[in-house]
Structures are given as C-alpha cells and as structure tokens.
C-alpha cells in the first residue's frame, strides 16, 4: 500500500507526486452529445463527469408534490428555473454502491450547484422556463463538487445560455489534520480522494477569474488560521481552471468556424478565435 499524506513534509511531494500548488490533469470536452442543447465531459484527474443541458424550455408547472429527483431554484417569478439532477453511477467509486437520488448528500450537491448557477446565469431573460442540467458521475477521485460545477459551466456555454462569466470551482486542503494543529501546514490545491479523507479541505467556486466567491463548502474541521491560506490557494486554482475551460471553449469555437457551423460574423469578430 502506498504512503499516506503524512509523508508530504519529507520532500514536499503529495501522495500522487504533485507539489502543493499543482492541479491534477484537467481535461474538458464540449459538445459531446450532438443531440443535446448543451453537453460536456470533464476529467479532473480520475474524477470523471458528464453534463447535459436541456433548455431553456417551457415550464411545465408542477402541480404540487414536487419531485425529489432534482433541485431547482426559482429565483424570481419572472426568471427561469435552474433545475439540477445528479446521478452517481454505481461503478464510480471503489466499492460498487448504488446511491439513490433521494440520498441527502446528492440532494445537497444538487441544491448547491443549482443555487450557484442561478446566480451567474441571466435567468431573467427566460421567464417561465426551465433550464435543466443533468450531471452524471462516471468516476470519483475527490473534488466531486468542483468537477460537477466546472462540467455544468462548460455545458451551459455550449447551450448558449447567457451568463456573466464561467462559474469555476476548485478544492483546497491543508497538509496536516485538524487535530495535529500544525501551524506551519502548507495549503494544498485540488484534493484527490485519499487527501480528501485524510486531510481537511474545502471547495470554492468563483465567478470567472475574479475573487467573487459563489460557493464555499467546508465539511471538515480546520483551524481558522489556516483557512485564509486555503481560500487563497483555491481562488488561485479557480483562475487556472478558468483558463483551461476557456481554452476548451475557444478550440470548440474555432472548430465550428472551420466546419462552417457558424459564420465568422461581426458579432464574434472582436474575439480572437485562433
């Protein structure tokens, strides 16, 4: 069995050979499902998720007894609902485990994503309609919430829904556990499963490359003194994620122009698509 996270201080290397401020390999694809309004596929290390966006489509007003399959946020009466459904595949973790959609953790994930996206999307442009986002988790290796948010952001770009900026997310941790109370602990960027289980960590989502924080989730105990360093590292990671996602979108755009799917019009003329 490999070493655990306590060996970080021996050579400043993490369990998978990264330094404290390095992301895992981040790979994104856009328009993976041609028939959908918007779709994406995202890998952060071995965490793999898929996202399909349907809509904005006409609202089917629910007649009481709302379903539990997805969380939706109606921000204002004249704005679109953002409804998020997360499905975790039984084969996605080490132990095969079927998670029902009514699982509390999954519901929480859905609600968090839904609220965060509703804030960055221009939902007021689509009154009485629903933007439905379905996320599928194919493989889990830590930073699940961050990966889901990033995948959703890509798919929403693909669907062409107006937004202020990409919502990008990333996790951060700290090299020593809460109880060890080591003041000199380094912050860590982008946790994998092992680090997530052994060390304190948090998830941060920012709006684009700004420092505006849209999501902050911390489920482990950590000294307040360490929090600032972890947040700074996470925000910095978000900027890196934003650049990578942006590159994915630009490449897709360039490909579409090349294929003639869209004309290189005046509207996008300001952007350098090569």
């Amino acid at each position, binding site marked *: 069995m490999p070493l655990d996270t306590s060996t970080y201080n021996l050579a400043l290397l993490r369990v998978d*050979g990264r330094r404290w401020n390095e992301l895992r390999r981040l790979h994104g694809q856009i328009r993976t499902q041609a028939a959908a309004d918007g779709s994406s596929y995202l890998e952060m290390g071995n965490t793999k998720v898929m996202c399909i966006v349907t809509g904005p489509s006409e609202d089917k007003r629910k007649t009481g007894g709302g379903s539990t399959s997805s969380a939706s946020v109606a921000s204002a009466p004249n704005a679109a609902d953002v409804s998020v459904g997360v499905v975790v595949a039984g084969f996605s973790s080490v132990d095969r485990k079927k998670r029902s959609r009514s699982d509390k953790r999954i519901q929480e994930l859905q609600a968090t994503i839904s609220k965060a996206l509703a804030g960055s999307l221009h939902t007021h442009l689509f009154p009485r309609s629903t933007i439905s986002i379905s996320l599928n988790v194919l493989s889990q290796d830590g930073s699940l919430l961050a990966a889901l948010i990033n995948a959703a952001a890509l798919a929403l770009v693909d669907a062409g829904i107006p937004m202020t900026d990409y919502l990008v997310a990333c996790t951060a941790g700290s090299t020593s556990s809460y109880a060890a*109370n080591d003041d000199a602990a380094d912050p860590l960027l982008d946790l994998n499963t092992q680090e997530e289980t052994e060390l304190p960590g948090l998830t941060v989502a920012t709006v684009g490359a700004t420092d505006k924080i849209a999501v902050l989730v911390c489920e482990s105990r950590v000294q307040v003194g360490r929090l600032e360093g972890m947040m700074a590292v996470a925000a910095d990671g978000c900027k890196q994620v934003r650049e990578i996602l942006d590159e994915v979108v630009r490449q897709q755009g360039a490909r579409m122009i090349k294929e003639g799917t869209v004309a290189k019009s005046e509207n996008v003329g300001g952007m350098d698509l090569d």
Partner: protein
Amino acid sequence: MTSLKRSFETDPLSSNISSKVYVRSTKRGKVQKIVREVYLRQDIPCSSQICSICRSTAPSNAAGVVSPFVLSDKPAGTKAFPQGHYLVPDTNALLNAMDLFEQTSAFYDVIILQTVLEELRNRSLPLYNRLIGLTKSEDKRFYVFFNEFRLETYVAREQDESINDRNDRAVRRAVQWYNEHLAQTKSKQRPTVVMLTDDRSNLEKAKAEKVPASTLRNYVSGLEEADRLLDMIAESQERGVSRDKKAVDFLYPEYYSMSKMMTGIKNGMLHQGIFNVSPYNYLEGSIKVPAFPKALLVLGRDNINRAVDGDVVVVEVLPKDRWKEPSTKIIEEEAVTKNENADGDEGEDLVTEKEKRALQEEVKKTHSTSTEGHPQPTAKVVGIIKRNWRQYVGHVDQSSVSQPAKQGRKQETVFLIPMDKKVPKIRIRTRQVGELLGKRILVTIDSWDRESRYPIGHFVRSLGELESKAAETEALLLEYDVQYRPFPKTVLDCLPREGHDWKVPPSTADPGWKDREDLRGLLICSIDPVGCQDIDDALHARALPNGNFEVGVHIADVSHFVKPSNAMDTEASIRGTTVYLVDKRIDMLPMLLGTDLCSLKPYVERYAFSVIWEVNEAADIVNVRFTKSVIKSREAFSYEQAQLRIDDASQQDDLTKGMRTLLMLSKKLKQKRMDAGALSLSSPEVKVQMESETSDPIDVKTKELLDTNSLVEEFMLLANISVAGKIYEAFPQTAILRRHGAPPKTNFDELSNQLKVKRGLELRVDSSRALADSLDECVDPHDPFFNTLIRVMATRCMMSAEYFCAGTQAYPEFRHYGLASEIYTHFTSPIRRYADLVAHRQLAAAIDYEPMHPAVRSRGRLEAVCKNINVRHRNAQLAGRASIAYYVGQALKGRVAEEEGFVMKIFSNGFVVLVPRFGIESLIRLRDLAEPEPESTFDAENYTLKTSGSREVTVELFQKVVVRISDAKDEATGKRGAKMELVRTV
C-alpha cells in the same frame, strides 16, 4: 456524433502521467482495486550538496522556504569506496538491521527510496516510524528520494514480473540514475552511490547492470568497529543462507494459517488473548479469553509453542483428559536447562529429559491429591496474531561460552539470559564474547523458527558492567520502557525565554493575569516529603464569619506553560508520568518547569489553579468553585515539620491555626470516606536511606505515616472528586476520568479459602464496604502484622485503576472501588502526571477560562492518551519498585540479618516469605533448606508443607518464620538481591 474516446498519445502530458494500481483487502475480507494517479516529474532533487543542477529546481513550500540539501559533499569513505559513498539500502536491509542504521559511528548519508519506504511500511509499522524518525534527525543525513515520482527512475511493472522483482529493479534503476546524475557534476571527488542488499539475485543483476552494490555484511566488515557492528545484523537472514540445504527436524508444531485462525475465532473454536507466563514457572502460561471467566492454562514447551510473554496468541482448548491443576511447583528455566549448548540444536528432542521428569512429577502429584483443586482447562497455542517483542536486557550465560572464545574473535553462539524471568533464553551470535561477559546488554529477538528451541536475536548494545549503578539503572529503565533520554531541543524551545528569571508579571493588566484571582494574601503552605522539589499542591484554610470554613487546594498551573500539541506537550504525553527511582527522577517535564516555574515554591509568587470550598463544621461541602489564581506560598513543610508545628501548642499564629483546621477537617473527611466503604489497602513500602555524599544505600526503613500525610491525601482526593464532577458535567463525552473496577469475586476465591482453612476467618467480597469490614476483622491478637499481610494479599487480588474517557463507559462504571467514590479523576499532580494536565485543560475550558483546544476535545485522541498513560503509569510503578528492590539488595551487601517474615504462598517444593522490615519477598526452595534436598509432603488443601529426612520442618501458610537474609547475586538474572534462608519457624 462525437466520440468521447481520445488517444492518450495526443496529450502532451501523457508521458508524465502514470497510474498505480493495486489491490487491497478490507478488514471484512472484501477485495478492493485501487487506482491512483501518479504524476512523474523531473524536479525532484538528488539532495546532494555537490550537485549544482538540482539547486535550480529545488522545491519550496507554501511559505517559499526551500528545503536544504541533505547529503554531505564529503561523505565518509571506506576501503571499497575511497571517494566516499552514499548508501541506498533495500527493504530487507532495513528490516534486518535497523539498529545498525541508528548507530552514531557509521551509516551517514543514506538515501531512502520511496519504493523502500512503502515496502517497509507494509512490512513493519514500528520500523517505518523509526526510519521516519531517522530522516528527521539532522546529523544522520538521511534523505528520502521519491524515485517513483521522478520520470527517469520510474519503473513500470512488466508482464509476468513479480512485485518484488519490480521493486528490486526500481531500486537498481534509482541507484544507477544517482550515479549517472552525480557524474554530471564537475566535482572532483565524486561519491559512489552503493546499493545495500542481501538478496542474492538482486546482487547478481546489479553486477550485470554495473550498479555498485554490496551485501550488508561485506559493507559492515569494511567499517571501523566491524566486530561490534557485525553482531547487530539480524541473525535470521544469514541462517537462511547457511541452513537451507539441511533437512531439519522441526521441534515445534506449525502455526495455523491466518484464515484458519480467523474462522476458528469467529465460530468460537479457537480463542484469542494475551499470553502471560507465570512468574514462578516458565513452562506455565495463562491466557485470559473473553469466552471463559477464568484464565486458560498453557503448559509445557510444546503447548506454549514459541509464544513469548505479552504476545497476542490464538489457542485451542485441549481435550478434557489433558486438563490439569495449575502447578504448585516452582520451575526455573535456569535450573532445568542449565547445561544446554547454545550451538547445537539438531538431534535433540524438544523437551529435554529433565523437563520431562519435572512434568511427570507434577502429573503424579495431580493424580494423588484427589480433589479440591479441580483440574483446570488447558490449551495449546496454535498461532500468533501479533508478536509483542521488545528489546530485552540481560546478560550472557557464562556457561554457554567456550573457553577460547573468551579471548578470540571467533564467532560464537551464546545464550542471553534476560532479566525478565518470563522471557526465554535468547540465542545470539557474536564475535565479542570476551567483552560481553559480565556486562548488561540489550538485545532484540529476530525470529523463532520451528527448528530452533530458543528464539534467535541479535546484540544491540552494551549498557555497562553488571551491578554497576549506571548500567543497572539504565537496564531497569529499558525493561520498563521508560523514556529517559534528555529532552530534545524542540522541547526545550517551548520553555519560556526568561528561564529561571521568569516571574509572575507585576502588573495585573498583563495578559497572564487575565481572569486570574489574586490570592496572594491567603496564608497558603505546602506539605510534601522531605527534599521534594516538584511541589504540585499547596493548601489553605480559614474560618469564615458564618462559622463555616473556607478551604483551598492550589495546584501548580502547568497548563499555562505547556500549550496543547506543541513539542513539549507531545513529549509529556509520550512520557505520561514522572518516574521516581531511589536515586534518580526521570521527569515528565523539563527541570525548569517541574522544579522551578510551576513548582509552588515558598516565598515566591506562582500561577496556580485553585479549588476553593466552603465547608461546614462536619466537613460537608456547602459550595465549591474553581479558578485560575496567583498565590504566594508562605512555607514549604515536610510531613514531619508540619506535624511538629501542629502538635506544638505554643504556636498560635494564623498559619498554624489554618493547618489545625485542615487536620480537623481531614479527619472528618476520612471518617466519611471509610463509612462509605473506602478500602485501606496496603503494600509493603520501604524507604532506602542513602549516604548523602556517595549516595550509597546504608539502611532501609519502613515508611512512617503521620497524620499530615493523610491530611494532604484527603484534600487531594476531595479536589480530584470535585474536579471530576465538574469536567464530567461540562464534557460528558470527553472528560478524562479515573476508575477502579470492582474486582471479580473469583479473584478472592483463593485468599478467602486460605483464610477459612487456616484461620477460620471469612472474607466477604460483595461490596467494597463488606470487604473493608471483613478485612478489619482479619486480626491475629498475637500478631499485629497479620492484618497488614492480609491487606497486602488482598491488594494483589484487585484490579488496577485506569484512566478513561467519559464517553467510553456508562456512568455506573465510573466508580472508583478503592476510594468508594462515584466519580474520580487526577487533577492534583500536573507536574508529574499527564492525565492531570489534561484535566487542567478541560477544567479551564469548563469554567470558560479558555476555549477548548481540539486535541483535548477529540475523543479518539484522548482514548489514545489514556491507553498510553495507563501503561506508563503501571511501568513507572514497577520500575520504582524494582529500583527499591535493587537498592535494598545493595544496602544489605555484606551484611547478614535475621528477621521475622511471613509465609505468603506455598508450593510443593518451596514457599514465599515476605519480610516486612525490608519490604521484600523471596522464594525459599526445598533444596535451599538442606543438602541433600529433603523429602517433602505437600498438603494442598491445608496449605502445609512437611519435610522429612535431612531436615524436618513444617511450614504453613501465614506462619511467622525467622529468616536469615544475606545478599547474593542471582546467577540466573545477574541481579543482586536478598537471599533468604529459613532459620526456624515460630
């Protein structure tokens, strides 16, 4: 439709990413396949100070600090590597010879590969931790090179390659890379990087690949002090080479496989427990298993099957016809196996003729004594779950050494006789027999194979001459696992910078004064034994206008100086307690704190944690409060001085009056406690008087108990009980408490039967109250000591008290049986006990003085702390007693004394006598009575031993005897101790 599939080749990063796949099984036996990413990189430095290439890419942590390069630019050279060398040990080298790597004379500049570290962690966690300790030591220059993360040294497992072969290849690859890498530096003197391995095929492959490699043995032979170091290489590995061709007869039955044992335990056919060896008979062990109320016996070498005292073993119950009574005979290994040859093993039976005879006699006895003692279930060891081998102190058996070896340098196999009689002899091979004879030495056990009658070990180091004070003290500390090394620098760094000049800040606006009550005006004094330097507690009492009394117990505020989770706190939590030996004290906290800054010395201001009660005339508590405070002790009394002052009617000052009040109240408190059923137990305590200059022991005195002893004790108990209630109320899950379980009734079976048979007395054990009362009735009008003797024996039937975390037990289980208190903790000695320090922190949080530190709040952590301090506490007691025993022996040196003693235990071939005057007990065997050994008849039912023939005496249990005590060196253990001879019975 776009395909999600993409080829990894197009990814520019693909060459840098690999994955690690392994399979592990969970506790429940489920198999999991784990896939991990591995990022390969080129900026992992070689960490050699001669290398300039790696400097530029050296990593830094989040604070921007670059880790310094570890490996020296001028490493030591040997004959084989005159240019200097760095060592790269493989896993087996570390497994077999960790002691070597910890030497200070050699083994510097060592590169530990990640591959090796991982493998070592799988094989042995303790060794892994020792290695991590080494890498942290600055002067040893150990560097961990993460070869699995460096692109050039990463090795992928090939088709059909075993994991061990892959790891060996990874080690060779890393060594090769290191040599190539260092070749690029311009340095003239370029050290060789040498692989250390004992694997023959690995060596051959290394040769073929031109990787410098050496066996451990060859390498060590090239060093200075080779002889000493060679002994430290574990025995087992070489035997593998020399023995594998011989067909060997197995002496011991094979162990069951792990899965067979697990299934057996699960379905109740096998039982797991800790193996204990009887202190009187090395061939008899017992094991307590949850399934049965009484311990199972394990008799004879065959059934003990290589288990050593303390191992966690699995046993199988033997058929009923093989059940037996516990032995009534003393069997000492030394006497039975005296003349065995350490070298030869082959051709001998497992059980020697003599051992067989000893066993036969016992069987005969069991059959002839018809009854009463029913045969007890016996069991045999079928497997070992966990070895609890530690390092053992002992001395080389003179008789196992051949004459020429005493001068020569020939390698010789000798027996080591451990000090602990419960541990079998250990075979070690050494080239320095001549030097080791007559020394106390430290060894470890490496293995115990089926074909070897005794375990095989290797020499670690020599402590010094037998019977020299230094060696014996160190031996004692090692045997009881007392941490006696000086405090490391990191710990000393946590002390206040002002050192001895630290003072309570004069201004009450200082942050140190925050929430502290100013109690400097109170007339506080401390009462301790003579010469006590670490004064934990001080007291005061004064009359209140309403007729009640205010009583205060003030405890040194150690938690002000020792902050949770810093290096000093960690060290203290490991040490657990201060250990008091006759001539030495091994502190839990550094001297500066223990004897000065925390110690409540007289005439100076000190921080304290105070418990203040208002009590009425009848010593009932009206109210209690807790506060941090500043006090100024008026006087530090010894128990005698305090007693004199109280008794001296001419002293009418307020301080003395306060002390009289305390004494009056303490007597009432004690009476209340006794009424509630508190036990007054006893253990023979003596004090060794030393000559002041040479500190040679000159006399032994039994401890006197004055009223003032009990004064202090009562108030400490009261404080502990009050604090326990408070912290339990505030933290019902995590409060640290102390409990003393009620002893199971069966513990007293033997004693009450003995009393009934011999004296017609009845021992009632239904409750502590009943026990206390019936103990009071156990008196012999002719002999005042008889009562004490019974108390001593009753004490040994008790459970030991233990620390625990409140959440782990139900409230009724909190009870302290001996003190008859519902709840109890330790609060009053934070300088010398870690539990008290934790209680201080919890109390401080409970009164909102400071927020609760996470370390004091985490239950898992507290449980670990409790477990450790329980062990440490016990060891400290044992070490203290052993130290007294040693000094009593020294004090008796060259003297012969006739003293009264009492028979405590009786066997068919000897009996144990307790001499209260010296607090010692010793065994008198029949063969000590007269030469030749007298015939004897043993009446087990009446506890009587009659001898006839060469000497005629009748010895009964509880009988008073007169013994002649002289000092003698026990050849078996090398200890000097009292030897008793029976003069006459009374």
